């Protein structure tokens, strides 16, 4: 890789980072407005036009709020907890292929932070670390509600990781690669008709999305922080931006989960008839192939974000509709329903691949 | 005006007030079970049979009424204390409202006792619901229920040193500053 290309790639990484933060920030706003609309309300409308400055107000307020260290809390870990939650949340978006590539002359910029051939495992590993932020924070708070929240978070995340992993394996069996980019590209190959993975893996997708809800601690699986039982759960004792980091981390996780679902099951940056469109641009509009490809890439990028926002909306929609599970019911759902279903899905996929029904 | 009258015993003669008949029946039963001398001041204010007895008998009577298969006073509606400072030797009282759901008969039993010796047997062994009612009576009037599993204040703070519902204690907070009006004297 040439140095300018490396520089461009660095910019892409930075952009990914920035976009994650921006989306997380405005997720708080979206959450409020969507919740309000679902509930026949209007949501924040007094901070800036349509209340668009609401997240900024929240952020500034949180930054200038007094720091607290609860008595008996482990200070180092108390600070470390939210930092870890934030770091792990941000790390996972690095391998998401947000777009194909842009080509300017000889420089090719892949719209992906970093391409590694075990991308999916990377995401999975980072996500599995996310729970440490919650656990450490909850434990360091020296509060029983926090500890209960932390314990719930730990057991919930471990349990649902298994089902999630098993659901992924079915995708892997079809794709034969762990690279997210490869998986994306396989879902649409020029000249061939390819379905998105959702058509081949409907059951796997349902399992995956349920697990995604659980991994991001969203209703109906928001037991670690459920307000009516544990007050705030693991972040009960946190004030100021440390609490803000936890909230942020949750939204970034939602964003990443949405992105991963879009990439794995909904074709990532592919959109229907993209190659036909490219060919049409070249043939009828007289564009160069490179330019046409760049346009397609940009459109794909926009399309992927549309998918991601759709999923984020779905996350919020569900959150404001459903009651939450009880702790033991949640565990039972994970272990006795989702995991067997996921295993069945693997067997089914294996069978279908063997008999050549899907590829 | 008293709708309770309408739900009367069906076998009551037409001529008589059904409530009166029913009350007479209950009273007869009471006399039969516990003896006539046990009850004084038998009244029927607004159709509700009211008897007064002594604290020595109250536990037996309530237990007997609860176990009686004919009338089945299974339900302790409420109990409350009362304070008549003028009645020498009977300053404090407890008033029990029993209810037989199956026959829809209510019964009010009163007991009175001196304020210097406010000791009453508990009913918690008969009715679980008596627990807090007795704690409330203890809290408000200082009635001591022997045999109560946990006779401590329920509504007021633990370190309160008087029983506020007794007539001698004032209602007001005393720290209220914004009341300058003594003119209209309440």
């Amino acid at each position: 890789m040439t140095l300018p290309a490396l520089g461009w790639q660095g910019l892409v990484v930075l952009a990914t980072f920035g976009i994650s933060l921006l989306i997380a920030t405005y997720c708080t706003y979206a959450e409020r407005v969507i919740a309000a609309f679902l509930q026949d309300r209007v949501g924040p409308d007094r901070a800036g036009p349509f209340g668009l400055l609401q997240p900024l107000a929240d952020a500034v307020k949180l930054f200038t709020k007094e720091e607290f260290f609860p008595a008996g809390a482990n200070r180092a870990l108390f600070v470390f907890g939210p930092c870890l939650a934030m770091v792990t949340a941000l790390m996972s978006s690095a391998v998401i292929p947000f777009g194909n590539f842009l080509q300017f002359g000889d420089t090719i910029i892949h719209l992906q932070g970093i391409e590694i051939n075990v991308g999916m495992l990377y995401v999975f590993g980072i996500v599995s670390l996310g729970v440490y932020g919650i656990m450490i924070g909850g434990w360091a708070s020296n509060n029983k509600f926090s500890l209960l929240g932390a314990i719930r978070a730990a057991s919930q995340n471990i349990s649902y990781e298994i089902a999630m992993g098993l659901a992924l394996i079915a995708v892997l069996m079809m794709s034969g690669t762990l690279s997210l980019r490869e998986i994306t590209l396989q879902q649409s190959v020029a000249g061939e008709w390819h379905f998105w993975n959702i058509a081949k893996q409907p059951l796997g997708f349902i399992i995956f999305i349920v697990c995604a809800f659980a991994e991001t601690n969203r209703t109906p699986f928001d037991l670690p922080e459920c307000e009516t039982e544990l007050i705030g759960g693991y972040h009960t004792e946190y004030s100021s931006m440390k609490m803000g980091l936890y909230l942020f981390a949750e939204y970034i996780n939602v964003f990443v989960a949405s992105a991963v679902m879009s990439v794995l099951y909904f074709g990532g940056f592919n959109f229907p008839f993209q190659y036909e469109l490219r060919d049409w641009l070249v043939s009828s509009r007289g564009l160069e192939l490179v330019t046409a490809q760049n346009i397609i890439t940009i459109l794909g990028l926009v399309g992927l974000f549309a998918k991601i926002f759709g999923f984020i909306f779905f996350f919020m929609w569900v959150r404001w509709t459903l009651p939450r599970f009880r702790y033991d019911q949640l565990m039972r759902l994970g272990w006795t329903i989702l995991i067997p279903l996921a295993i069945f899905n693997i067997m089914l996929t294996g069978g279908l691949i063997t008999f050549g029904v899907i590829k | 005006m008293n709708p309770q009258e309408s739900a009367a015993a069906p076998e009551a003669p037409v001529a008589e007030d059904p409530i009166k008949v029913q009350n007479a029946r209950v009273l007869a039963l009471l006399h039969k079970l516990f003896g006539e001398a046990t009850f004084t001041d038998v009244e029927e204010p607004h159709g509700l049979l009211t008897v007064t007895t002594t604290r020595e008998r109250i536990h037996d009577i309530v237990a007997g009424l609860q176990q009686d298969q004919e009338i089945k006073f299974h339900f302790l509606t409420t109990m409350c204390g009362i304070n008549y400072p003028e009645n020498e030797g009977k300053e404090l009282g407890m008033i029990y409202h029993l209810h037989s759901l199956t026959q829809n008969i209510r019964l009010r039993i009163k007991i009175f006792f001196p304020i210097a010796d406010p000791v009453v047997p508990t009913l918690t062994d008969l009715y679980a619901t008596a627990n807090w009612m007795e704690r409330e009576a203890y809290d408000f009037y200082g009635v001591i229920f022997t045999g109560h599993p946990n006779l401590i204040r329920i509504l007021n703070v633990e370190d309160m040193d008087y029983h506020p519902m007794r007539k001698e204690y004032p209602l007001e907070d005393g720290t209220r500053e914004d009341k300058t009006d003594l003119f209209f004297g309440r």
Partner: protein
Amino acid sequence: MSPLFLFLSFVALLSALGVVLAKNPVHSVLFLILTFFTLSGHYLLLNAQFLAAVNIIVYAGAIMVLFLFVIMFLNLNEETEPHKPALAKIAAAIAGGSLLLILVAALRNVSPAGYDAASFDSQIGMVDRLGLVLFKEYALPFELASILLLAAMVGSVMLGKRETGERNF
């Protein structure tokens, strides 16, 4: 030896020491997780990406969470730590020393083989390669391991089974 390797080794040793020396068991666990991270770093240096990721997922992401879970639940800390008798300390020192001795003796003559850049296969640590090796050459141990896991699962189900008459979990 690249500086990265040196750095990772340094951190690995330091955090491994931390595991043993930390007073607070929670700190110990956190040091252990750090150790696993550095080990994963080493795997990456060895071009074993899959192993690196799996190491993080399985060890750091799952097993250590359980460790932490248990420690938090038991709420171990300095006050509740039972005093260990001197004999146990001496025995531990001897046992540890022996282990060190054996390790040193075993590794004394090992000379790390350099690699031949010409014949180096960059795909050696990749998933598909690993899978082939695992399912061809080591199929039997692999299946045996799965039986072991199955036994463990059955055992845990038995342990976790609800007593009759108990409500909820």
